[in-house]
């Protein structure tokens, strides 16, 4: 039987096992929305802005490893989605974004709500398609899901002109897909793995540095086994938090611009560095020239060959799926009779403990003002360390990363690569939709939260009891911090006057609002909020305006050139 293009789109989503689509209707996608109306297998979540829809699908994916799906209309629908798509692209999140397009005969004629969506999104998608024939919808959707979730994952956009959703074709969903131009590797090269193991076994001052790739390939179990078997120290990038249990003794905390003293020093001083699913980006290693003095041997495991030797030359590259490569390495290590130099390792640990004793994350616990770090610590206690935590971008993001100890992967959800303010709340919605009943906290600031505040309305409609923890310092805090350090205290446009009354705002959207002004009220407020299991609670914490994020590696400096408290 022939189906319309719109029916085919829905059938494809059903075939892929998609349960939730986040979206916003409009002219070019009306036929697709009509099909949503006629079925109940795929649920649609109506956000209040397309950016919110894409971030929600992104949060959904990050917390579950499923492909996140968003649906937007042509023109402004697509351009509003771009920030969300670029966010997912930078963090390699598997997503399929379906966008409506003006009817085929109108393309190129500057039609109403027309924009070259494929052109605009090309630099920030793993791949994109413009479907020009109804017969191609099914195979294109199959390819889109396959591309999004295989190899190094990423967002894939499918642009479908309105007339194509109306045309009819036989529906056949392909069982499998093969592309002669796309064959992502999985297994690492055995010779390279052997060379890596030799370096690992010869190491005197080893260090394991892991990123989001460990989470994406579900390799945190293998990583923990490897790190423990070798008794090596381990650090995670911002994207990699939760990849290794943060409460473990061998964990040195996050590294990088706001990483711990011990993690950054160990990165700098190690003689063998094992980089796993991480990409040596500028926020992680600072100045590459400084990083190479002293030199060290580097093993780099990554699924994307273009991540290897991009910023930093490495000695043993291993291209492959992190999980497969780690499994091979574990197999070889457990059958090897060679052992690492235990005495050397012991004195390395002694050095690390000395660095650790510096207690680089200390802050004034006696302050009469609410310290933002303390709010995150209390959140950790109140949630038993088991919440999903999303964040926006800025100081609060760094404090969340430093003070919430993530023991499991997929619990820490933030925009690491693109650094998108406005990500936190919609991402938290996606997490909550995917994990009903779970504790979901959105750590944010009074600046970031206002970038997608409209999604409070979506939370009301779908009963999403997200807990919003706003660390409100009346400043765009990270901007202010840089201005304090590097721009002579000239706080140019980083102060926000005329903030809304967030309590009333939350109430206006039908939620619970709280304003917390004293340190002694923090814990009680958090407990009260989480006790309201079925309500969204907006907690407006009035925090110390002058607090800065430490340690800090200033831009262009090396990892061991940190500013400490």
């Amino acid at each position, binding site marked *: 039987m022939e189906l319309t293009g719109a029916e085919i789109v829905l059938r494809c989503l059903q075939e892929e096992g998609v349960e939730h689509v986040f979206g916003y209707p409009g002219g070019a996608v009306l036929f697709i929305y009509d099909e949503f109306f006629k079925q109940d297998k795929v649920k649609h979540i109506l956000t209040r802005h397309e950016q919110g829809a894409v971030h929600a699908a992104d949060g959904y994916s990050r917390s579950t490893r499923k492909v996140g799906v968003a649906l937007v209309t042509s023109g402004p629908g697509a351009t509003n989605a771009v920030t969300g798509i670029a966010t997912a692209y930078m963090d390699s999140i598997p997503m399929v974004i379906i966008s409506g397009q003006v009817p085929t005969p109108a393309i190129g004629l500057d039609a109403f709500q027309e924009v070259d969506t494929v052109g605009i999104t090309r630099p920030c998608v793993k791949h994109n398609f*413009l479907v020009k024939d109804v017969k191609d919808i099914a195979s294109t959707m199959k390819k889109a899901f396959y591309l999004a979730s295989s190899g190094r994952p990423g967002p894939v956009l499918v642009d479908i002109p309105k007339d194509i959703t109306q045309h009819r074709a036989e529906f056949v969903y392909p069982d499998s897909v093969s592309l002669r*131009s796309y064959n992502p590797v999985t297994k690492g090269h055995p010779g390279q793995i052997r060379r890596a193991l030799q370096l690992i076994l010869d190491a005197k001052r080893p260090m394991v540095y892991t990123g989001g790739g460990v989470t994406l390939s579900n390799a945190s179990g293998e990583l923990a086994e490897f790190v423990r078997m070798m008794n090596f120290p381990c650090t995670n990038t911002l994207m990699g938090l939760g990849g290794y249990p943060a409460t473990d003794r061998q964990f040195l905390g996050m590294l990088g611009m706001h990483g711990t003293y011990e993690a950054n020093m160990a990165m700098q001083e190690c003689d063998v560095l094992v980089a796993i699913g991480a990409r040596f980006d500028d926020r992680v290693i600072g100045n590459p020239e400084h990083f190479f003095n002293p030199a060290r041997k580097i093993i780099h495991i990554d699924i994307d060959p273009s991540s290897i030797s991009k910023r930093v*030359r490495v000695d043993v590259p291993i291209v492959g799926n992190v999980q497969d490569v780690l499994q091979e390495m574990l197999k070889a290590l457990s059958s090897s009779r060679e052992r690492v130099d235990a005495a050397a390792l012991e004195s390395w640990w002694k050095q690390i403990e000395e660095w650790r004793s510096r207690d680089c994350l200390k802050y004034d616990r006696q302050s009469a003002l609410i310290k933002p770090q303390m709010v995150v610590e209390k959140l950790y206690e109140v949630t038993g360390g088991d919440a999903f935590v999303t964040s926006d971008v800025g100081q609060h993001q760094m404090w969340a990363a430093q003070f919430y100890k993530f023991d499991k992967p997929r619990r820490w959800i933030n925009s690491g690569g693109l650094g998108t303010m406005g990500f936190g709340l919609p991402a938290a919605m996606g997490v909550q939709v995917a994990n009903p009943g779970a504790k979901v906290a959105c750590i944010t600031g009074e600046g970031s939260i206002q970038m997608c505040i409209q999604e409070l309305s979506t939370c009301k409609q779908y009963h999403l009891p997200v807990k919003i923890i706003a660390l409100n310092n009346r400043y765009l805090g990270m901007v202010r911090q840089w201005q304090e350090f590097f721009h002579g205290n000239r706080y140019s446009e980083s102060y926000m006057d005329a903030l809304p009354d967030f309590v009333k705002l939350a109430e206006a959207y039908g939620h619970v609002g709280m304003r917390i002004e004293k340190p002694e009220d923090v814990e009680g407020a958090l407990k009260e909020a989480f006790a309201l299991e079925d309500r969204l609670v907006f907690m407006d914490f009035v925090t110390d305006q002058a607090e800065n994020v430490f340690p800090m590696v200033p831009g262009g400096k090396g990892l061991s050139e940190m500013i400490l408290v």
Partner: protein
Amino acid sequence: MRHIISLLMENEAGALSRVSGLFSARGYNIESLSVAPTEDPSLSRMTIVTSGSEDVIEQIIKQLNKLIEVIKVIDLNDGEHIEREMMLVKVKAGEAEREEAKRMADIFRGRIIDVSDQSYTIELTGTVAKLDAFLAAIDRGWILETVRTGASGIGRGARMLRI
């Protein structure tokens, strides 16, 4: 250093813009780019002349390989290869220039493919350097118009780029 990169990709709408977009987004140089379908119409072959350090060339090749529609990429400079470019030059050929212009075309083994009472159009094929040499050799004021295809390259002997 100058490199000639050859690649095979799916002959699909938008494929060229993915390659050119990649070069501009990542700040890579393009000296020339030429593309046309192969004997298999589902495939396009592209030749890109670029320049950069070894690290940059390595990244260019990796990034090209990462494009979903790109099937194979080689750096022709990795081995023996032949490079050719074609140029059409319209030169002044009035009474004063006529003989000398013909002589220059002959020296460079060009062919005159269009003649009018005021001009010759010369077809020249060779390496990029040879075409440059021709333009340098002839009086600048005589050149009315030039059009070049950009370099194409192919490996010598058994060295091939095919799927």
